[in-house]
Protein backbone atom coordinates (compact mmCIF):
# COMPACT_ATOMS: atom_id res chain seq x y z
CA UNK A 1 0.00 0.00 0.00
CA UNK A 2 2.42 2.66 -1.17
CA UNK A 3 0.08 5.68 -1.01
CA UNK A 4 -0.83 5.34 2.67
CA UNK A 5 2.67 4.28 3.59
CA UNK A 6 4.16 7.38 2.01
CA UNK A 7 1.55 9.60 3.55
CA UNK A 8 2.19 8.19 7.04
CA UNK A 9 5.97 8.43 6.51
CA UNK A 10 5.54 12.11 5.76
CA UNK A 11 3.08 12.66 8.63
CA UNK A 12 5.32 10.92 11.18
CA UNK A 13 8.39 12.85 10.01
CA UNK A 14 6.46 16.12 10.18
CA UNK A 15 5.59 15.47 13.84
CA UNK A 16 9.27 16.10 14.63
CA UNK A 17 10.04 18.80 12.07
CA UNK A 18 8.62 22.02 10.71
CA UNK A 19 7.48 20.56 7.40
CA UNK A 20 3.82 19.91 6.59
CA UNK A 21 2.81 16.64 4.86
CA UNK A 22 1.73 17.25 1.27
CA UNK A 23 -1.75 15.73 1.58
CA UNK A 24 -2.71 17.67 4.72
CA UNK A 25 -5.03 20.64 4.49
CA UNK A 26 -7.72 22.54 6.38
CA UNK A 27 -10.95 24.33 5.48
CA UNK A 28 -8.81 27.43 5.44
CA UNK A 29 -5.53 26.01 4.08
CA UNK A 30 -3.47 28.83 5.61
CA UNK A 31 -4.41 27.39 9.03
CA UNK A 32 -3.11 23.91 8.22
CA UNK A 33 0.27 24.49 9.85
CA UNK A 34 -1.30 25.70 13.12
CA UNK A 35 -3.80 22.86 13.16
CA UNK A 36 -1.10 20.29 12.44
CA UNK A 37 0.80 21.70 15.41
CA UNK A 38 -1.86 20.17 17.70
CA UNK A 39 -0.54 16.71 16.81
CA UNK A 40 3.08 17.82 17.20
CA UNK A 41 2.28 19.22 20.60
CA UNK A 42 0.24 16.18 21.71
CA UNK A 43 3.09 13.83 20.86
CA UNK A 44 5.85 15.90 22.49
CA UNK A 45 3.88 16.93 25.59
CA UNK A 46 2.47 13.44 26.08
CA UNK A 47 5.88 11.79 25.96
CA UNK A 48 7.75 14.39 28.02
CA UNK A 49 4.97 14.20 30.64
CA UNK A 50 5.32 10.42 30.72
CA UNK A 51 9.04 10.91 31.46
CA UNK A 52 8.31 13.50 34.15
CA UNK A 53 5.90 11.05 35.79
CA UNK A 54 8.50 8.31 35.79
CA UNK A 55 11.45 10.51 36.84
CA UNK A 56 10.10 12.96 39.45
CA UNK A 57 13.37 13.09 41.40
CA UNK A 58 15.47 13.77 38.28
CA UNK A 59 13.02 16.56 37.46
CA UNK A 60 13.32 17.98 40.97
CA UNK A 61 17.13 17.84 40.82
CA UNK A 62 17.48 19.67 37.50
CA UNK A 63 14.37 21.86 37.62
CA UNK A 64 11.32 21.82 35.35
CA UNK A 65 12.79 23.85 32.48
CA UNK A 66 15.99 21.84 32.21
CA UNK A 67 14.03 18.61 32.51
CA UNK A 68 11.63 19.59 29.75
CA UNK A 69 14.49 20.50 27.40
CA UNK A 70 16.37 17.33 28.18
CA UNK A 71 13.25 15.11 27.91
CA UNK A 72 12.51 16.72 24.55
CA UNK A 73 15.96 15.84 23.32
CA UNK A 74 15.49 12.27 24.55
CA UNK A 75 12.10 11.95 22.81
CA UNK A 76 13.59 13.17 19.52
CA UNK A 77 16.49 10.72 19.69
CA UNK A 78 14.72 7.81 21.36
CA UNK A 79 10.98 7.75 20.68
CA UNK A 80 9.19 4.89 22.48
CA UNK A 81 9.65 1.42 20.99
CA UNK A 82 6.92 -0.08 23.12
CA UNK A 83 3.21 0.72 23.08
CA UNK A 84 3.30 0.37 26.84
CA UNK A 85 4.14 3.83 28.09
CA UNK A 86 4.90 2.35 31.51
CA UNK A 87 8.12 1.07 29.94
CA UNK A 88 9.18 4.32 28.32
CA UNK A 89 12.40 5.78 29.65
CA UNK A 90 14.37 2.60 30.33
CA UNK A 91 17.28 4.10 28.41
CA UNK A 92 16.85 7.59 29.90
CA UNK A 93 19.59 7.00 32.55
CA UNK A 94 22.15 6.12 29.83
CA UNK A 95 21.01 9.11 27.81
CA UNK A 96 21.54 11.37 30.84
CA UNK A 97 25.02 9.90 31.36
CA UNK A 98 25.99 11.02 27.85
CA UNK A 99 24.02 14.29 27.88
CA UNK A 100 26.58 17.13 27.90
CA UNK A 101 24.54 19.73 29.81
CA UNK A 102 23.98 17.22 32.69
CA UNK A 103 27.68 16.36 33.08
CA UNK A 104 27.99 18.54 36.19
CA UNK A 105 25.62 16.15 38.00
CA UNK A 106 27.48 12.81 37.69
CA UNK A 107 25.06 11.09 40.11
CA UNK A 108 22.00 11.96 37.99
CA UNK A 109 22.01 8.77 35.83
CA UNK A 110 22.09 6.56 38.94
CA UNK A 111 19.21 8.45 40.55
CA UNK A 112 17.34 7.89 37.27
CA UNK A 113 18.24 4.17 37.48
CA UNK A 114 16.56 3.99 40.89
CA UNK A 115 13.46 5.57 39.33
CA UNK A 116 13.50 3.08 36.42
CA UNK A 117 13.79 0.24 38.94
CA UNK A 118 10.85 1.60 40.94
CA UNK A 119 8.63 1.61 37.83
CA UNK A 120 9.69 -1.92 36.91
CA UNK A 121 9.10 -3.19 40.45
CA UNK A 122 5.66 -1.56 40.53
CA UNK A 123 4.48 -3.51 37.48
CA UNK A 124 6.46 -6.72 38.11
CA UNK A 125 4.74 -10.07 38.58
CA UNK A 126 3.08 -10.77 41.93
CA UNK A 127 4.57 -13.35 44.28
CA UNK A 128 3.95 -14.08 47.95
CA UNK A 129 6.95 -13.65 50.26
CA UNK A 130 7.67 -16.63 52.51
CA UNK A 131 8.31 -16.53 56.26
CA UNK A 132 11.54 -17.82 57.86
CA UNK A 133 9.75 -20.98 59.06
CA UNK A 134 10.30 -22.52 55.59
CA UNK A 135 14.00 -22.80 56.41
CA UNK A 136 13.29 -24.90 59.50
CA UNK A 137 10.88 -27.05 57.49
CA UNK A 138 13.50 -27.57 54.79
CA UNK A 139 16.09 -28.50 57.43
CA UNK A 140 13.68 -30.98 59.01
CA UNK A 141 13.07 -32.50 55.61
CA UNK A 142 16.81 -33.15 55.49
CA UNK A 143 17.92 -30.46 53.08
CA UNK A 144 21.67 -29.96 53.31
CA UNK A 145 21.83 -26.74 51.43
CA UNK A 146 19.27 -24.57 49.73
CA UNK A 147 18.67 -22.32 46.80
CA UNK A 148 16.33 -19.41 47.40
CA UNK A 149 14.19 -17.73 44.75
CA UNK A 150 13.90 -13.99 45.20
CA UNK A 151 10.88 -11.82 44.49
CA UNK A 152 10.46 -11.01 40.76
CA UNK A 153 10.19 -7.30 41.58
CA UNK A 154 13.72 -7.16 43.06
CA UNK A 155 16.12 -4.68 41.47
CA UNK A 156 19.58 -3.78 42.79
CA UNK A 157 21.04 -0.42 41.74
CA UNK A 158 24.69 0.19 42.58
CA UNK A 159 26.19 3.63 42.29
CA UNK A 160 29.63 5.14 42.72
CA UNK A 161 27.75 8.08 44.30
CA UNK A 162 25.30 8.37 47.21
CA UNK A 163 22.44 7.98 44.71
CA UNK A 164 20.10 6.43 47.27
CA UNK A 165 20.59 9.25 49.78
CA UNK A 166 20.03 11.83 47.02
CA UNK A 167 16.90 10.03 45.83
CA UNK A 168 15.64 9.70 49.37
CA UNK A 169 16.15 13.32 50.44
CA UNK A 170 14.35 14.49 47.30
CA UNK A 171 11.12 12.72 48.05
CA UNK A 172 7.99 14.92 48.30
CA UNK A 173 7.93 16.88 51.53
CA UNK A 174 11.64 16.42 52.26
CA UNK A 175 14.27 19.12 52.12
CA UNK A 176 17.69 18.05 50.80
CA UNK A 177 20.64 18.75 53.05
CA UNK A 178 24.38 18.69 52.46
CA UNK A 179 25.78 15.16 52.21
CA UNK A 180 28.79 15.05 54.54
CA UNK A 181 29.80 11.48 53.76
CA UNK A 182 29.95 11.27 49.96
CA UNK A 183 30.41 7.59 49.08
CA UNK A 184 29.22 4.76 46.87
CA UNK A 185 25.79 3.34 47.68
CA UNK A 186 23.65 0.44 46.59
CA UNK A 187 19.85 0.66 46.57
CA UNK A 188 17.51 -2.29 46.88
CA UNK A 189 14.17 -1.81 45.13
CA UNK A 190 11.43 -4.31 45.91
CA UNK A 191 7.64 -4.63 45.85
CA UNK A 192 6.99 -7.51 48.26
CA UNK A 193 3.24 -6.86 48.23
CA UNK A 194 1.58 -3.71 46.89
CA UNK A 195 4.06 -1.00 47.94
CA UNK A 196 7.47 -0.40 46.40
CA UNK A 197 10.24 -0.25 48.95
CA UNK A 198 13.57 1.49 48.29
CA UNK A 199 16.40 1.16 50.80
CA UNK A 200 20.17 1.34 50.94
CA UNK A 201 22.00 -1.93 51.52
CA UNK A 202 25.54 -2.51 52.73
CA UNK A 203 28.17 -4.04 50.38
CA UNK A 204 28.16 -7.39 52.21
CA UNK A 205 24.37 -7.73 51.86
CA UNK A 206 24.64 -6.72 48.22
CA UNK A 207 27.19 -9.51 47.64
CA UNK A 208 24.97 -11.95 49.57
CA UNK A 209 21.82 -11.08 47.58
CA UNK A 210 23.62 -11.01 44.25
CA UNK A 211 24.91 -14.54 44.80
CA UNK A 212 21.38 -15.75 45.57
CA UNK A 213 20.12 -13.97 42.47
CA UNK A 214 22.75 -15.80 40.44
CA UNK A 215 21.18 -19.04 41.72
CA UNK A 216 24.05 -19.81 44.10
CA UNK A 217 23.51 -21.99 47.14
CA UNK A 218 22.59 -20.25 50.39
CA UNK A 219 25.94 -21.31 51.87
CA UNK A 220 27.78 -19.74 48.91
CA UNK A 221 25.79 -16.54 49.28
CA UNK A 222 26.69 -16.33 52.96
CA UNK A 223 30.36 -16.86 52.06
CA UNK A 224 30.11 -14.05 49.52
CA UNK A 225 28.78 -11.76 52.27
CA UNK A 226 31.59 -12.74 54.63
CA UNK A 227 34.21 -12.26 51.94
CA UNK A 228 32.97 -8.70 51.53
CA UNK A 229 32.90 -7.92 55.24
CA UNK A 230 34.20 -10.11 58.11
CA UNK A 231 31.55 -8.50 60.39
CA UNK A 232 28.75 -9.88 58.15
CA UNK A 233 26.44 -11.92 60.36
CA UNK A 234 24.76 -14.86 58.56
CA UNK A 235 21.90 -15.19 61.08
CA UNK A 236 20.97 -11.52 60.87
CA UNK A 237 21.24 -11.56 57.07
CA UNK A 238 18.92 -14.55 56.76
CA UNK A 239 16.41 -12.99 59.14
CA UNK A 240 16.61 -9.78 57.10
CA UNK A 241 15.84 -11.35 53.70
CA UNK A 242 12.73 -13.00 55.11
CA UNK A 243 11.59 -9.96 57.09
CA UNK A 244 12.01 -7.76 53.98
CA UNK A 245 9.87 -10.11 51.91
CA UNK A 246 12.65 -11.06 49.49
CA UNK A 247 12.20 -14.83 49.47
CA UNK A 248 9.39 -16.40 47.44
CA UNK A 249 10.57 -20.00 47.08
CA UNK A 250 13.01 -22.38 48.77
CA UNK A 251 14.33 -25.47 47.04
Amino acid sequence: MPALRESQDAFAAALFSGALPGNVTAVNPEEAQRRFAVYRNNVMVGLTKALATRFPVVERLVGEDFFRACAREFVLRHPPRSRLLMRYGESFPDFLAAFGPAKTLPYLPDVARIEVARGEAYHAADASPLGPDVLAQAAEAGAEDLRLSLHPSLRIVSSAHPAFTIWSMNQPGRTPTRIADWRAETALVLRPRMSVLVEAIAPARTAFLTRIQERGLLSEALEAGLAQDPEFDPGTAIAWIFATGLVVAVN
Partner: protein
Amino acid sequence: MNTHLPASAGVGFKNEHFDAIIATKPKLGFFEVHAENYMGEGGPAHARLAALRRDYALSIHGVGLSIGAHGPLDREHLHRLKALCDRYAPESFSEHLAWSTHDTAFLNDLLPLPYNDETLALVCDHIDEVQDVLGRRMLLENPSTYLLFADSTLQETQFLREVASRTGCGLLLDVNNVFVSAVNHGTNALDYLADFPLDRVGEIHLGGHDEETLPTGAPLLIDAHGSPVADPVWALYAHVVAATGPLPTLIEWDNDVPPWPELMAEAARADAILHPEMLHARAS
Protein backbone atom coordinates in the same frame (compact mmCIF):
# COMPACT_ATOMS: atom_id res chain seq x y z
CA MET B 1 -25.25 -3.34 19.73
CA ASN B 2 -22.13 -5.43 20.29
CA THR B 3 -21.89 -4.52 23.92
CA HIS B 4 -23.18 -5.95 27.14
CA LEU B 5 -22.61 -2.82 29.14
CA PRO B 6 -25.66 -1.48 30.96
CA ALA B 7 -27.39 1.43 29.22
CA SER B 8 -26.44 3.91 31.89
CA ALA B 9 -23.55 6.22 32.76
CA GLY B 10 -20.04 5.00 33.54
CA VAL B 11 -16.75 6.77 34.15
CA GLY B 12 -13.13 6.34 33.17
CA PHE B 13 -11.32 4.81 36.14
CA LYS B 14 -8.52 6.88 37.71
CA ASN B 15 -6.25 5.51 40.43
CA GLU B 16 -6.79 8.55 42.66
CA HIS B 17 -10.49 7.65 42.94
CA PHE B 18 -9.96 4.05 43.98
CA ASP B 19 -10.30 4.55 47.74
CA ALA B 20 -13.47 6.64 47.36
CA ILE B 21 -15.00 4.02 45.07
CA ILE B 22 -14.22 1.09 47.35
CA ALA B 23 -15.41 3.00 50.44
CA THR B 24 -18.73 4.12 48.92
CA LYS B 25 -19.47 1.47 46.23
CA PRO B 26 -21.50 4.00 44.21
CA LYS B 27 -24.20 2.90 41.83
CA LEU B 28 -22.63 3.25 38.39
CA GLY B 29 -23.21 1.60 35.04
CA PHE B 30 -19.59 0.61 34.41
CA PHE B 31 -15.94 1.59 34.57
CA GLU B 32 -13.74 1.99 31.53
CA VAL B 33 -9.95 1.56 31.57
CA HIS B 34 -7.23 2.00 28.98
CA ALA B 35 -5.97 -1.45 28.07
CA GLU B 36 -2.29 -0.47 27.91
CA ASN B 37 -2.22 0.61 31.57
CA TYR B 38 -2.94 -2.99 32.56
CA MET B 39 -0.33 -4.75 30.48
CA GLY B 40 2.24 -5.00 33.24
CA GLU B 41 2.66 -8.39 34.84
CA GLY B 42 1.28 -7.65 38.30
CA GLY B 43 1.20 -5.11 41.09
CA PRO B 44 -1.29 -2.49 42.27
CA ALA B 45 -2.75 -1.76 38.80
CA HIS B 46 -4.06 -5.30 38.44
CA ALA B 47 -5.07 -5.50 42.10
CA ARG B 48 -7.25 -2.40 41.72
CA LEU B 49 -8.78 -3.52 38.45
CA ALA B 50 -9.58 -6.96 39.88
CA ALA B 51 -11.26 -5.29 42.89
CA LEU B 52 -13.36 -3.03 40.64
CA ARG B 53 -14.26 -5.92 38.39
CA ARG B 54 -15.84 -7.81 41.29
CA ASP B 55 -18.53 -5.13 41.65
CA TYR B 56 -18.85 -3.38 38.30
CA ALA B 57 -19.31 -3.90 34.60
CA LEU B 58 -16.10 -3.17 32.67
CA SER B 59 -15.19 -1.66 29.34
CA ILE B 60 -11.62 -2.13 28.10
CA HIS B 61 -10.63 0.68 25.76
CA GLY B 62 -7.43 0.28 23.75
CA VAL B 63 -5.31 3.26 22.79
CA GLY B 64 -2.27 1.53 21.27
CA LEU B 65 -3.39 -0.98 18.65
CA SER B 66 -2.87 1.49 15.79
CA ILE B 67 -5.63 0.06 13.60
CA GLY B 68 -5.14 2.76 10.96
CA ALA B 69 -1.38 2.28 10.48
CA HIS B 70 -0.18 0.89 7.16
CA GLY B 71 1.33 -2.56 7.38
CA PRO B 72 0.27 -5.44 9.60
CA LEU B 73 -1.12 -5.14 13.12
CA ASP B 74 1.32 -5.88 15.91
CA ARG B 75 0.52 -9.50 16.75
CA GLU B 76 2.27 -9.30 20.08
CA HIS B 77 0.13 -6.36 21.13
CA LEU B 78 -3.00 -8.04 19.87
CA HIS B 79 -2.20 -11.09 21.98
CA ARG B 80 -1.62 -8.91 25.01
CA LEU B 81 -5.11 -7.52 24.42
CA LYS B 82 -6.49 -11.01 24.16
CA ALA B 83 -4.84 -12.02 27.45
CA LEU B 84 -6.31 -8.95 29.11
CA CYS B 85 -9.80 -9.59 27.74
CA ASP B 86 -9.56 -13.27 28.75
CA ARG B 87 -8.48 -12.30 32.26
CA TYR B 88 -11.10 -9.63 32.98
CA ALA B 89 -13.90 -10.70 30.59
CA PRO B 90 -15.01 -7.09 29.94
CA GLU B 91 -18.53 -6.40 28.74
CA SER B 92 -17.02 -4.39 25.91
CA PHE B 93 -13.76 -3.86 24.05
CA SER B 94 -13.21 -0.78 21.92
CA GLU B 95 -10.44 0.90 19.93
CA HIS B 96 -9.95 3.95 17.73
CA LEU B 97 -10.16 4.84 14.08
CA ALA B 98 -6.61 6.21 14.16
CA TRP B 99 -2.96 5.24 14.01
CA SER B 100 -0.34 5.73 16.68
CA THR B 101 2.74 3.83 15.52
CA HIS B 102 5.19 4.33 12.71
CA ASP B 103 7.82 1.76 11.81
CA THR B 104 9.19 0.81 15.22
CA ALA B 105 8.16 4.02 17.01
CA PHE B 106 5.10 4.45 19.21
CA LEU B 107 3.88 8.03 18.80
CA ASN B 108 1.42 8.02 21.71
CA ASP B 109 -1.29 10.03 19.96
CA LEU B 110 -4.39 9.14 17.97
CA LEU B 111 -3.37 10.33 14.52
CA PRO B 112 -5.85 10.84 11.69
CA LEU B 113 -6.01 9.01 8.39
CA PRO B 114 -7.45 9.87 4.99
CA TYR B 115 -10.76 8.22 4.19
CA ASN B 116 -10.58 6.42 0.86
CA ASP B 117 -10.81 2.92 -0.62
CA GLU B 118 -7.27 2.06 0.37
CA THR B 119 -7.67 2.98 4.04
CA LEU B 120 -11.15 1.43 4.15
CA ALA B 121 -9.77 -1.93 3.03
CA LEU B 122 -6.88 -1.68 5.49
CA VAL B 123 -9.07 -0.78 8.48
CA CYS B 124 -11.57 -3.54 7.64
CA ASP B 125 -8.77 -6.14 7.38
CA HIS B 126 -7.38 -5.04 10.73
CA ILE B 127 -10.75 -5.13 12.45
CA ASP B 128 -11.45 -8.60 11.03
CA GLU B 129 -8.16 -9.71 12.53
CA VAL B 130 -8.85 -8.12 15.92
CA GLN B 131 -12.28 -9.71 16.13
CA ASP B 132 -10.83 -13.07 15.05
CA VAL B 133 -8.08 -13.06 17.65
CA LEU B 134 -10.19 -11.67 20.50
CA GLY B 135 -13.11 -13.90 19.62
CA ARG B 136 -15.51 -11.02 20.16
CA ARG B 137 -16.93 -8.06 18.34
CA MET B 138 -15.34 -4.72 19.03
CA LEU B 139 -16.50 -1.13 18.95
CA LEU B 140 -14.62 1.39 16.79
CA GLU B 141 -14.52 5.03 17.92
CA ASN B 142 -14.82 8.09 15.69
CA PRO B 143 -11.79 10.39 16.16
CA SER B 144 -11.53 14.09 16.91
CA THR B 145 -9.59 15.64 14.05
CA TYR B 146 -7.82 18.93 13.45
CA LEU B 147 -6.98 18.54 9.76
CA LEU B 148 -8.39 17.39 6.45
CA PHE B 149 -6.68 15.21 3.85
CA ALA B 150 -6.58 16.05 0.17
CA ASP B 151 -6.72 12.32 -0.61
CA SER B 152 -9.93 11.65 1.34
CA THR B 153 -12.73 10.56 -0.97
CA LEU B 154 -15.25 9.43 1.65
CA GLN B 155 -16.99 11.24 4.49
CA GLU B 156 -16.06 9.95 7.95
CA THR B 157 -19.67 8.84 8.50
CA GLN B 158 -19.65 6.91 5.21
CA PHE B 159 -16.34 5.36 6.14
CA LEU B 160 -17.55 4.22 9.57
CA ARG B 161 -20.82 2.89 8.17
CA GLU B 162 -18.92 0.87 5.60
CA VAL B 163 -16.46 -0.50 8.20
CA ALA B 164 -19.31 -1.54 10.49
CA SER B 165 -21.21 -3.17 7.67
CA ARG B 166 -18.22 -5.06 6.24
CA THR B 167 -16.74 -6.25 9.55
CA GLY B 168 -19.81 -6.49 11.76
CA CYS B 169 -18.12 -4.32 14.39
CA GLY B 170 -20.08 -1.86 16.46
CA LEU B 171 -19.31 1.82 16.80
CA LEU B 172 -18.38 3.94 19.76
CA LEU B 173 -19.83 7.39 19.18
CA ASP B 174 -17.75 10.06 20.88
CA VAL B 175 -20.07 13.05 20.87
CA ASN B 176 -17.36 15.43 22.03
CA ASN B 177 -15.20 14.29 19.10
CA VAL B 178 -18.12 14.97 16.74
CA PHE B 179 -18.40 18.51 18.09
CA VAL B 180 -14.64 19.16 18.11
CA SER B 181 -14.21 17.96 14.52
CA ALA B 182 -17.27 19.84 13.26
CA VAL B 183 -16.06 23.13 14.73
CA ASN B 184 -12.53 22.52 13.43
CA HIS B 185 -13.77 21.79 9.91
CA GLY B 186 -16.53 24.40 9.87
CA THR B 187 -19.24 21.78 9.43
CA ASN B 188 -22.46 21.08 11.32
CA ALA B 189 -22.39 18.42 14.02
CA LEU B 190 -26.11 17.75 13.52
CA ASP B 191 -25.50 16.95 9.85
CA TYR B 192 -22.76 14.54 10.90
CA LEU B 193 -25.09 12.83 13.39
CA ALA B 194 -27.90 12.68 10.83
CA ASP B 195 -25.59 10.68 8.59
CA PHE B 196 -24.04 8.53 11.36
CA PRO B 197 -25.14 4.87 11.50
CA LEU B 198 -26.69 5.25 14.95
CA ASP B 199 -28.08 1.71 14.87
CA ARG B 200 -24.46 0.51 15.13
CA VAL B 201 -23.63 2.47 18.27
CA GLY B 202 -22.82 0.34 21.31
CA GLU B 203 -21.42 3.06 23.54
CA ILE B 204 -21.19 6.83 23.75
CA HIS B 205 -18.23 8.88 25.00
CA LEU B 206 -18.53 12.35 26.50
CA GLY B 207 -15.53 14.44 27.52
CA GLY B 208 -14.26 17.99 27.81
CA HIS B 209 -12.31 19.94 25.20
CA ASP B 210 -10.09 23.03 25.16
CA GLU B 211 -10.76 25.99 22.93
CA GLU B 212 -8.17 28.22 21.29
CA THR B 213 -8.45 30.94 18.67
CA LEU B 214 -6.17 30.91 15.64
CA PRO B 215 -4.59 34.15 14.31
CA THR B 216 -7.22 34.08 11.53
CA GLY B 217 -9.91 34.34 14.21
CA ALA B 218 -11.08 30.77 13.58
CA PRO B 219 -11.66 28.55 16.60
CA LEU B 220 -9.48 25.52 17.24
CA LEU B 221 -10.98 22.92 19.56
CA ILE B 222 -8.70 20.33 21.14
CA ASP B 223 -9.91 17.04 22.57
CA ALA B 224 -8.20 17.39 25.96
CA HIS B 225 -10.33 15.39 28.45
CA GLY B 226 -9.36 17.82 31.19
CA SER B 227 -12.60 19.67 31.93
CA PRO B 228 -16.37 19.17 32.26
CA VAL B 229 -18.43 18.24 29.20
CA ALA B 230 -19.34 21.45 27.35
CA ASP B 231 -22.97 22.58 27.04
CA PRO B 232 -23.22 22.18 23.23
CA VAL B 233 -21.92 18.61 23.65
CA TRP B 234 -24.62 17.86 26.23
CA ALA B 235 -27.19 19.21 23.77
CA LEU B 236 -25.88 16.96 20.98
CA TYR B 237 -25.88 14.04 23.39
CA ALA B 238 -29.55 14.60 24.29
CA HIS B 239 -30.27 14.78 20.57
CA VAL B 240 -28.55 11.40 20.00
CA VAL B 241 -30.26 9.71 22.96
CA ALA B 242 -33.64 10.94 21.75
CA ALA B 243 -32.95 9.07 18.51
CA THR B 244 -31.30 5.91 19.86
CA GLY B 245 -32.79 5.41 23.31
CA PRO B 246 -30.54 4.78 26.31
CA LEU B 247 -26.97 3.65 25.55
CA PRO B 248 -23.97 2.98 27.79
CA THR B 249 -22.36 6.41 28.20
CA LEU B 250 -18.86 7.14 29.43
CA ILE B 251 -17.63 10.33 31.07
CA GLU B 252 -13.95 10.66 30.08
CA TRP B 253 -11.81 12.85 32.29
CA ASP B 254 -8.13 11.93 31.97
CA ASN B 255 -6.21 15.13 32.77
CA ASP B 256 -6.57 17.50 35.73
CA VAL B 257 -8.72 14.74 37.22
CA PRO B 258 -11.43 16.21 39.48
CA PRO B 259 -12.44 14.99 42.94
CA TRP B 260 -14.61 11.89 42.80
CA PRO B 261 -17.93 13.68 43.62
CA GLU B 262 -17.41 16.05 40.69
CA LEU B 263 -16.93 13.15 38.28
CA MET B 264 -19.99 11.41 39.71
CA ALA B 265 -22.00 14.61 39.17
CA GLU B 266 -21.10 14.48 35.46
CA ALA B 267 -22.21 10.84 35.33
CA ALA B 268 -25.47 11.77 37.08
CA ARG B 269 -26.07 14.43 34.44
CA ALA B 270 -25.72 11.81 31.71
CA ASP B 271 -28.02 9.44 33.60
CA ALA B 272 -30.65 12.19 33.85
CA ILE B 273 -30.64 12.43 30.05
CA LEU B 274 -30.61 8.65 29.58
CA HIS B 275 -33.32 7.92 32.12
CA PRO B 276 -35.48 11.02 32.73
CA GLU B 277 -38.26 8.77 34.08
CA MET B 278 -36.06 7.84 37.02
CA LEU B 279 -35.63 11.48 37.97
CA HIS B 280 -39.41 11.91 37.96
CA ALA B 281 -39.81 8.76 39.97
CA ARG B 282 -37.36 10.10 42.53
CA ALA B 283 -39.06 13.50 42.68
CA SER B 284 -42.58 12.12 43.19
